[in-house]
């Protein structure tokens, strides 16, 4: 059957949560038969095209206390229904978390960023999700809540495959927290799409710490090159503890590109992704190093 995207043909029961308890109670009751709806920019597309058919829709954008950004000495805490646009407009994100800022800026159109949430970007678990590589390099922690309580999961353990996360059917992602960034740290994000504002063909984030001419710690994450967004420890290890030079950046970029296992799909070929990932990683490393106050 051809899809008519003019309408939403699917039928479901609509549940509008006004408190976290209410949302969790419904999730506990309906589990896999329910889907959480935030901005709907992924979910409604998937429902229109018949990829998912929930019996219950639990709308969470009206849940009090899930839409916030809090910046202090402990770092940054972001409520799950915070929109991409709000993140983009937050000074603490722009100045302290360049990779996240650049990722959000690169995403979609203004209208989609007004609707879409960070929780939805993670919950959708696309290998191309643009907020994922930045969160991986910052070592973000996700707070997952259910009626039984809450648990904290490192973002690295969250993604299991395309569209798959470690969220249990009765769990809701409520908060993303990022550790504080020191004055000698720097991060960056780069993405290659077909056109501006496109879903990524490939995206990469870097975060590093500097002491003098040396890089003391470094994290690198790629998206769209594997079933989940991934870190590349092979390249990270080459940089950590070393004096940063152009040559070393090139060597690490090569190692990073060799370590990823891109596939060919309708957005790009494997060969193309391999080539371009080396160039992008080198660019991202230079940007992060310079933001950390390093010279080349």
């Amino acid at each position, binding site marked *: 059957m051809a899809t*008519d*995207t*003019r*309408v*939403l*043909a*699917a*039928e*479901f*029961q*609509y549940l*509008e949560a006004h408190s976290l308890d209410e949302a969790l109670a419904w999730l506990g009751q309906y589990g896999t038969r329910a889907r959480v*709806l935030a901005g*709907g*920019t992924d979910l*409604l*597309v998937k429902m*229109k*095209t018949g990829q998912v058919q929930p019996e219950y*829709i639990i*709308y969470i*954008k009206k849940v009090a206390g899930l839409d916030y950004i809090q910046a202090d000495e402990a770092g940054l805490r972001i409520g799950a229904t915070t929109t991409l*646009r709000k993140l983009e407009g937050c000074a603490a994100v722009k100045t302290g978390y360049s990779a996240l800022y650049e990722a959000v800026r690169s995403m*979609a*159109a*203004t*209208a*989609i960023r*007004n*609707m879409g949430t960070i929780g939805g970007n993670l919950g959708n678990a696309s290998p191309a999700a643009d907020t994922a590589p930045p969160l991986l390099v910052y070592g973000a922690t996700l707070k997952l809540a259910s009626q039984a309580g809450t648990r904290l999961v490192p973002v690295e353990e969250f993604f299991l495959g395309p569209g798959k996360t470690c969220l249990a059917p009765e769990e809701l992602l409520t908060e993303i927290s990022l550790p504080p960034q020191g004055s000698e740290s720097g991060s960056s994000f780069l993405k290659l799409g077909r056109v*501006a*504002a496109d879903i990524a063909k490939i995206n990469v984030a870097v975060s590093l710490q500097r002491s003098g001419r040396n890089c003391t710690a470094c994290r690198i994450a790629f998206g769209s090159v594997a079933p989940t967004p991934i870190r590349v420890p092979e390249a990270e290890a080459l940089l950590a503890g070393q004096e940063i030079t152009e040559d070393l950046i090139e060597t690490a970029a090569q190692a990073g590109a060799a370590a990823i296992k891109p596939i060919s799909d309708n957005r790009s070929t494997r060969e193309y992704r391999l080539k371009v990932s080396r160039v992008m990683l080198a660019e991202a490393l230079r940007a992060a190093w310079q933001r950390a106050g390093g010279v080349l």
Partner: protein
Amino acid sequence: MERQWVKLKVNGKERQLFIKPNELLLNVLRDELGLMGAKYGCGLGECAACTVLVNGQPMLACLILAVTMEGQEITTVEGMGDYDRLHPLQQSFLDHGAVQCGFCTPGMLLTAQALLAENPDPSEEEIRDYLRGNLCRCTGYAAIVRAVKEVKHPA
């Protein structure tokens, strides 16, 4: 699926709708309220022809369940101005030849209105960035960008 009552404000007027949860805001505006400004282009979030303002922010009516709009304020292009009293942006689009077939125009106007509310004097680059998701198959964008850049603000 049971219908339910939803109260919202559209172009400044209180409206009560008795709708099913799977009804999209776009179709409710067009079919129930007779507001034909917002257009159906792709239905998938790719074109922004269906843009409306929700509490002043551009959003895509083809991806919004109308039931979620309880208590919100929606503005469609019909709420911007009319033939006798055009909004300065509407006048500027006319003056600059920024309308050809007109299909993208309501979305362009509303998105531009939101931009100017945030940033009254945007650069060309800022205009292009803000409008980057609004597709136009006719004009090549140059006239649209000029129309936004050179809009005469009401005194």
